[in-house]
């Protein structure tokens, strides 16, 4: 067999690695700011651009898609070439992929700061950026499959299966969840509403965790852990079984984010069942990773790379055990909406993704720069700071979550809520928010040491853009050889493999999504539920712009502790006109689903809302809510009203039916102004002088509408 000479593209790996580091620093710094804001609201700076509601999606997106995203590409571009003994398919595609992805990140940061968001968690980007992501993702896949088809190795190593599953599933998820109808060049409404929107969102949201944060990093683990430890994988057989089990099961688990909500019961139960089953394949991966180190544990003492990887895999095991536990309905009834969720995801993000990335970078830099790590001691310090940081981050939040959820549910012996004022339960745990800042800061200092260490390593060594390599040409027989097992044959046929992997995830998707489409008949319609008025619709879009839903849920669960606090529990039929749904996933502030019910437990007057939005601390000194003074200064943009009404009508909101007059979009602003004047006059009676064309009027109109539709009979 003749030997062929070629080179590995190291330059693209270097660029992705640098991008990983840069966005890691940015994303975690923004995270630190978000943590500070929850501890001390003064850090919202009373500026629209820097309030928590806008900062939080910047943090989550930067860490997930910028830091981990570039981490994935670093791992793929490095390991794929070597596992397949070939250069990447096309340098041009590699560079379009690199710069395209960075451009998407920058545009994401800019649009979030400006308040341009769809409100859907981890899918907040608006439609033009969604399209750009699709294009760049396809380019990535094209480059990857091109490389696979030109390989000189016969078999596809397990890491590559994980990469393929990642590519296919993320594409399906992203497109499925981003189907939206634009009404302007930067804004859109999702085609799904209410319960359907929530189900699709968490089908996406959960699997973004599964297929963006987990499967590619398992691929990374299966390549870099054996490398760093110089050990073969403990069990290749186990890797096969847990791969297929993982991608089959993960896709069904999404509804566990919606337990006790208005989602139909059967969908909730399905989500729980599959979440519990997920422990098996997840722990299969963890054991396979840890047992790969059997007989090599002495190396862990000396190598910072291995230390990071061991803790990463352990954190993976912890959070994949914790996740299924949190999916049990009774556990979820306690943990949901609390900081337990935040602690849980940070065990995954800081531990699994962060530490595995650091381990990979500490391995890659000396390797690619052909030198030793500048300082092993500094790397060890990083490791301990990072580990301590994680502990100081997570423990206070777990503790705070337990305290708060028990306070929410505590009744006096007379049957009243022990803590009827939501704020009391927040004030109680604010010290935990301070402690969390400390944890985050430690982790960040560690990261900073890594940046210094790696840059020093790079200046010390010499980098080769194109690393020379050679391998025998591949003469692959596409036909199954006699005695060759199906899977072994399959591993050699990447296209067939991709199709099977796609079928695997689509089956789960179909199970979850087909009923979603049919759900309309499952949702009992409620006659009294009416579309939003034009002013309320505008107010709702401001609510979305400011990210109010990051801290306020709109979903009263059917517990006595919740109906006592908030009012009637939420019904599926209430949300049929909610494009998008705004159920939320965290209660940093109280639930707002029944905020507008006259005489209800949550009801507030117009003037209360006005003063509260202007300066929450003036109303409640202990409040940690940011102030929104610009809502009072800025004029409401009513030029968008007709387009919004038209878009909503196209999505099935009956603005084109009785009692609405024909061509309602053209006269909707008349109704808007009328309602705005009513609110302004009421404010005037309470001594507040504001003109009716300000944004705050629309927000008040929306808040006063919440939950009102089904309350009138009382």
């Amino acid at each position, binding site marked *: 067999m003749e030997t062929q000479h070629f080179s590995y593209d190291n330059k693209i790996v270097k660029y992705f690695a640098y991008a990983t580091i840069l966005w890691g620093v940015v994303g975690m710094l923004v995270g630190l700011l978000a943590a500070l804001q929850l501890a001390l609201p003064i850090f919202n700076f009373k500026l629209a651009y820097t309030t928590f509601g806008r900062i939080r999606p910047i943090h989550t997106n930067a860490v997930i898609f910028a830091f981990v995203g570039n981490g994935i590409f670093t791992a793929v571009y490095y*390991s794929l070439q*070597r*596992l397949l*003994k070939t250069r990447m398919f096309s340098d041009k595609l590699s560079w379009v992929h690199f710069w395209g992805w960075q451009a998407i990140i920058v545009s994401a940061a800019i649009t979030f700061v400006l308040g341009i968001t769809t409100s859907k968690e981890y899918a907040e980007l608006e439609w033009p950026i969604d399209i750009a992501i699709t294009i760049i993702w396809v380019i990535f896949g094209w480059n990857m499959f091109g490389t696979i088809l030109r390989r000189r190795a016969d*078999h596809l*190593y*397990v*890491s590559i299966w994980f990469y393929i599953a990642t590519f296919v599933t993320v594409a399906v998820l992203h497109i499925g969840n981003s*189907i939206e109808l634009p009404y302007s060049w930067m804004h859109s409404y999702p*085609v*799904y509403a209410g319960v*359907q929107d929530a189900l699709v969102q968490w089908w996406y949201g959960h699997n973004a965790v599964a297929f963006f944060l987990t499967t590619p990093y398992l691929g990374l683990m*299966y*390549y870099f852990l*054996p*490398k760093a430890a*110089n*050990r*073969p*994988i*403990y*069990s*290749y*057989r186990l890797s*096969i*079984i847990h791969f*297929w*089990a993982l991608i*089959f099961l993960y896709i069904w688990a999404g509804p566990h984010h919606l337990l006790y909500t208005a989602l139909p019961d059967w969908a909730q139960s399905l989500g729980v069942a599959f979440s519990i089953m997920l422990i098996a394949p997840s722990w299969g991966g963890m054991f396979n990773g840890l047992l790969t180190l059997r*007989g090599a544990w002495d190396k862990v003492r000396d190598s910072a790379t291995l230390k990071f990887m061991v803790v990463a895999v352990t954190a993976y095991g912890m959070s994949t055990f914790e996740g299924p536990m949190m999916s049990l309905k009774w556990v979820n009834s306690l943990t949901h909406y609390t900081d337990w969720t935040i602690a849980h995801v940070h065990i995954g993000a800081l531990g699994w993704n962060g530490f595995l990335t650091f381990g990979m970078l500490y391995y890659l830099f000396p390797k690619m720069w052909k030198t030793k790590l500048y300082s092993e001691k500094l790397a060890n310090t990083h490791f301990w700071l990072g580990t301590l940081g994680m502990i100081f981050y997570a423990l206070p939040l777990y503790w705070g979550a337990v305290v708060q959820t028990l306070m929410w549910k505590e009744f006096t012996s007379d049957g009243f809520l022990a803590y009827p004022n939501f704020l009391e339960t927040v004030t109680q745990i604010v010290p935990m928010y301070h402690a969390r800042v400390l944890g985050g800061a430690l982790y960040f200092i560690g990261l900073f040491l890594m940046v210094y260490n790696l840059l020093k390593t790079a200046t010390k060594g010499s980098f080769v853009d194109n690393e020379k390599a050679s391998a025998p040409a591949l003469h692959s027989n596409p036909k199954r050889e006699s*005695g060759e*097992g*199906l*899977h*072994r044959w399959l591993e050699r046929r990447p296209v067939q493999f991709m199709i099977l992997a796609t079928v*695997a995830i689509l*089956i*789960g998707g*179909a*199970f979850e999504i*087909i*009923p979603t*489409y*049919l759900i*309309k008949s499952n949702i009992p319609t409620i006659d009294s539920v009416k579309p939003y008025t034009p002013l309320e619709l505008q107010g709702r879009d401001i609510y979305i712009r400011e990210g109010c839903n990051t801290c306020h849920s709109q979903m009263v669960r059917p517990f006595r502790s919740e109906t006592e606090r908030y009012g009637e529990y939420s019904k599926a039929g209430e949300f049929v006109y909610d494009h998008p749904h705004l159920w939320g996933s965290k209660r940093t502030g109280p639930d707002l689903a029944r905020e507008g019910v006259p005489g209800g437990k949550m009801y507030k007057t117009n003037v209360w809302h006005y003063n509260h939005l202007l300066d929450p601390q003036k109303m409640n000194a202990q409040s940690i809510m940011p102030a929104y003074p610009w809502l009072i200064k800025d004029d409401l943009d009513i030029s968008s009203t007709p387009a919004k009404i038209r878009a909503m009508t196209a*999505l*099935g909101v009956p603005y084109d039916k009785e009692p609405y007059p024909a061509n309602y979009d053209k006269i909707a602003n008349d109704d808007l102004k009328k309602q705005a004047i009513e609110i302004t006059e009421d404010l005037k009676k309470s001594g507040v002088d504001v003109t009716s064309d300000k944004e705050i009027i629309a927000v008040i109109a929306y808040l006063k509408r919440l939950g009102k539709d089904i309350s009138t009979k009382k």
Partner: protein
Amino acid sequence: MKLVSHYLQGISDVGFFPSISLLIFFLFFVGMIWWAYKKSNKAFFTKMASYALEEEEGTSSSNRNNNH
């Protein structure tokens, strides 16, 4: 959305799809486990387990191969 659900609802017994898919999933998975435990595959798995280590010549492969 209205379009898609219209067509989906038009398929007779579409509710049966999920059950079929569950069955396919289950059978596929059982087949996978059977395959993974087939004796004749053992040598192949051993080879693949150290696949990531093999690609670079010059790494000390001798001590690895003796260990399993």
